[in-house]
C-alpha cells in the first residue's frame, strides 16, 4: 500500500505555498528534492514549522520522521520563527582569532538572550554561523543578512541599540 494516497492540498491560500509547490514540481515530486524544497520553505517563510514539514513530507512521499530528521540534522534549517531583525555573528576560525567570541558575549549581554535565541518581544534574533567566507576582513557580522566586516564591540552595540529602541 502506498504511504500516502495522493498529494495533499496546499495548506492555505498563502501564495508562498505555490512557490514551494513549484520547487517540488520542478523536481518531479521526487523524494530526493526534500532538502531543496525545505530550502524554499525556509527562504519563503523564514523558518520551518510542523505544518510545513508535514506538507512537504506528504507531497514528496517521504516519511515524516525522515523529513524531521533532515530538518534537525542541518544547521541551516530553523524550527523557530526569526525575530524582526537578525544579528548573526560569524564564529569561523579567522573571526575567532580576531575575537568574535567577545562579540558574541557582548551581544548576549546586551540583548539578555543566548546565541540561537530571540528576544522575548520578537525584536532581535541572535545567532552564530560557521564562516561566511569573508575571512580576509574578520571579524564579520551579518545584520539582517547584510555583511558588515571588521566589526568592533561599540559598532555592534550601536546597531543593536538602534534595533531595540525602535
Amino acid at each position, binding site marked *: 500500500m502506498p504511504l500516502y494516497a495522493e498529494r495533499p492540498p496546499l495548506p492555505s491560500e498563502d501564495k508562498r505555498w505555490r512557490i514551494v509547490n513549484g520547487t517540488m514540481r520542478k523536481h518531479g515530486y521526487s523524494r*530526493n528534492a526534500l*532538502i531543496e524544497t525545505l530550502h524554499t520553505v525556509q527562504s519563503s517563510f523564514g523558518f520551518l514549522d510542523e505544518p510545513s514539514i508535514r506538507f512537504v513530507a506528504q507531497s514528496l512521499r517521504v516519511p515524516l520522521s525522515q523529513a524531521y530528521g533532515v530538518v534537525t540534522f*542541518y*544547521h541551516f534549517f530553523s524550527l523557530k520563527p526569526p525575530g524582526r531583525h537578525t544579528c548573526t555573528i560569524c564564529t569561523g*576560525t579567522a573571526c575567532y*582569532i580576531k575575537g568574535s567570541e567577545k562579540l558574541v558575549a557582548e551581544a548576549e549581554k546586551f540583548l539578555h538572550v543566548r546565541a540561537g535565541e530571540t528576544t522575548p518581544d520578537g525584536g532581535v534574533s541572535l545567532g552564530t554561523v560557521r*564562516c561566511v567566507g*569573508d575571512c580576509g576582513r574578520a571579524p564579520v557580522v551579518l545584520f539582517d543578512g547584510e555583511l558588515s566586516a571588521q566589526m568592533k564591540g561599540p559598532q555592534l552595540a550601536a546597531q543593536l541599540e538602534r534595533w531595540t529602541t525602535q
Partner: protein
Amino acid sequence: MNVEELQQIAGSAQEEREKFDYEVNVCMGTSCLSQHSDKIRDAIAKEASACGKSCHVRRTGCMGPCAAGPMVMIEPAETRYGHVREEDAKDIVAALGGEPVARLDPQLGSYFEGQNFVVLENVGHIDPEKIDEYIARGGYEALLKVLTEMSPGSVIEQISKSGLRGRGGGGYPTGLKWDTVAKVKGAQKYVICNGDEVDPGAFMDRSVLESDPQRVIEGMAIAAYAIGANKGYVYVRAEYPLAVQRLTVALREARRRGFLGNAICETTFNFDIDVRLGAGAFVCGEETALIASIEGKRGMPRPRPPYPAVSGLWGDPTLINNVETFANVAPIIRHGGEWFASMGTARSKGTKVFALTGKIQRTGLVEIPMGMTLRQIIFGIGGGVADGRKFKAVQTGGPSGGCMPEEHLDLSISYDALISAGSMMGSGGMIVMDDTSCMVSVARFFMEFCMTESCGKCVPCRAGTVQMFELLTKITKGEATHRDLDRLTELCEVVGATSLCGLGQTAPNPVLSTLRYFKHEYLAHIEEKRCPAGVCEFSATAADTRRGEVHV
C-alpha cells in the same frame, strides 16, 4: 559549436574590448560587495560618460587582497586602487591615461611577488556572468579540443601526467580517481563538484565560483567526457548566496552557448549540471555524506569500500572532486600535463590557492606554486604579523589540520611536508596567530567545532569529541591535572584510529599538533594555573591553588 565559431566569439569579445581606451574593473566579490562596490561601479560609469572618456566599467570577481577592498583595477596599465569610495570616482576617471591617484594606492607591497596564477588566471579580468569574456581568454578551448581530438583515455593520461592531486585536502591523485571511475562498467555515471566549503577560515571555493564559474563548469564537462558521465551536480553551501547566483547564471549561459545539454559541440556527448544547496553540515565535505545529502537525506557518511567510484550517487559510479581541482583541469588540457608538472615539488605539482587570514598585515586570496615556504607566504606576500606583534603559529587544514610554530616557517608547502609537520594541506585556509592567541583555547575551539559537527553515527567521534572538549575546557579553566592530560592524549589516539570518517579521524589533529609544539602552554595551565597568552580566565579555586592556598 566548432573551433571557428569559438574563435569568432572570442574575436568579437576582443573587438568589443578594443573599442574602449580603458577598462575599469571593479571587484564585486562578497567582501568588496559588502562595502557597496556596486555603487562605486555605477559612480565610475556615470563619471566616465559625463567626461566623455572611452572606458568600459566591468564587474569582476575577487581580486585577492580583501583587506584593501573595495578594489578597483585599471587595464591595460594594471593600476590597482584600494579602499575606494564612491566619492573617488571623479579622481579615478580623471587619472585615466595619466598618473595614478596616489592616495588610493592599496599599499600592497610584495603581495603579488612569487604568486603564480593558474586557477585564478582570469580573476579580476572577466565579468563572471559573461561567458564570452571567459571564451575570449581561452575558455572552452580545452573542452572543444577534448571532444574533437582526444579519446577519454588520453584525457585521463594528461591529467595523470600533470600530477594533479585533489585540492579538497586529501591529496588523492586526480588522474587515478578518474581512471578508476572510467574503468567501472555502468550505464549511468555522475560527476559531482564538492563546493561545500564548511572549513571555517577558508574561502577559495567561494572566490572561484564567484569570479570564474565557467572554469569549473568546463572542468566538470571534461571530467564527464573522460569517465563517461552525462549528469553532474555542484554542491554549494547555502551560506554563499552570491556564489550560488553567479553559478546559476553561468550554467544558463553555458547551456545557451551549447557547452551543456545534448550533442555538445556537434558531438554525441551529452552533459548537464544541476546545483544542489548544502545546508550547513561540515561532515558533508566527506564524499559519502555529500552523496547522501544530494539524495535528500541526512548527510551521514558510510563505510568505504565500496568507494563512490564504484557505488556512489543512487548506487551508480560517481566521481567527486573539489571546486579547485576542477578549476585546474582546463589549463592542464590547454597547455599539456608536462607544463603543469613542471611547477611545484616532486610529489605535489602545480599551484595551490590559500586564504591567508588571521593576525596578518595583508589578508586575502593567494595562489602560490607548491614548494614555496610558509615564511615567504606569511612575511613576503602577507607582509608579516599585524600590529607589530610576535608571530606564534600558523594553522592550516582547518579543524582537521594543525598549528605549526616558528621553527617550521621554512617548510616548503607540499601535501607530504605538511602532514609530517603534524598539519595537513586541507582545502587551503591559512590562519596566522600572534602571541595573543592561547593555543589550548585554539585547540578547544576546533574541538568544539568537531563536537557540534559530528554527525553522531559512530561512537568514537560522537562521544570522544565531547570528552576531549570537556578535558580541554577543564585545562583552560585551570582545573585539570596531569592525569587529564594523559587521558586527553589517549583519547586522541583512540578517536583518530577508530572513527568512521575523516571528520573523526582528523578531529584530534589540532590537539596533537598543539601538544607537540606548545606543550609548555598546556603545562602552564595545569601546573601554574596561568595562561601565557592571557586569554583564559581561571576559576576562583584555580587562582587560590596558584597562590598556594588550599581549600578544605
